[in-house]
């Protein structure tokens, strides 16, 4: 039995970060399917690209710079799902 995990992707719609948000969301859908309880896409502004897995902020553009590595996010989800 695995715990359902919610992923939130907050992206700057003003900056045109939709492709990166959709690409990451698609990769997680394909990799984890129904093991995720939800993938939430939050359009924001101010140059944001943040990814939260459960309660953990695994990537923040302001904190870490740039876009996240998809493999790193998948690994964080794997840890949250399977422990």
């Amino acid at each position: 039995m695995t715990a359902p995990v919610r992923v939130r992707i907050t992206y700057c719609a003003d900056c045109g970060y939709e492709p990166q948000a959709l690409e990451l969301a698609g990769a997680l859908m394909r990799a984890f399917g129904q093991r995720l309880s939800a993938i939430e896409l939050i359009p924001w502004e101010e140059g944001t690209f943040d990814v939260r897995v459960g309660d953990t902020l695994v990537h923040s553009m302001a904190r870490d710079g740039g876009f996240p590595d998809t493999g790193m996010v998948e690994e964080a989800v794997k840890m949250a799902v399977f422990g």
Partner: protein
Amino acid sequence: MGAITAERFQQGLTYDEFVSSMTRNQDRFIANEERVRLTKADVDAFKRRPLRVAILAADWCGDVVANLPVLGMIAKESGALDLRIFERDANPDLMDQYLNQGQFRSIPVFAFFDDAWNEVGVFIERPDSVTGRRAQRRKEIFAKHPEFGSPDTPVDQLPEDVRARLQQELQKMRDEMADWANAEVVRELRAIVEGRTTRGGARQPDRPTQPAA
């Protein structure tokens, strides 16, 4: 812009072609055009020095929608600036010559050239003064609305209704600041054209002005 030649310049869209081709934010763009106010002294300053301006832009970018109309109105009222617009993602060779802080593909970029294709100045993204005042106003919004929590609270941790209200407040702030921000853009562009600086917009590390291509 090392890769800019007379021939390449002519391949860019004219200002009117760019506005017509916009698939997003065209209404906001045109509304911003109508807000631009230029003094006679401003227009005269631009008239004194005809220049070409190579522009990197995209219609999804808030800073393009805010700042390109200012340059467009200056060009129309002065008749002295020849504008050509290059879509950011379709012209990576041009974009990579004007990276913000040497790293970021920030737009708009306004690169000014004289008749001999010497680069006389570059404006990137938005004036630092605008960035600074926005940050200050953002702090004031949070101070006035304790329900928004700390300014450092990640947006995705805010309840949806609070997030929506915060977004409204930030939009209101931008609307209230628009006339002042437009004047700041005019002031910085005028300083470039008058030869008082080679830089406008986001502060950059020093780099020599490029010679003609």
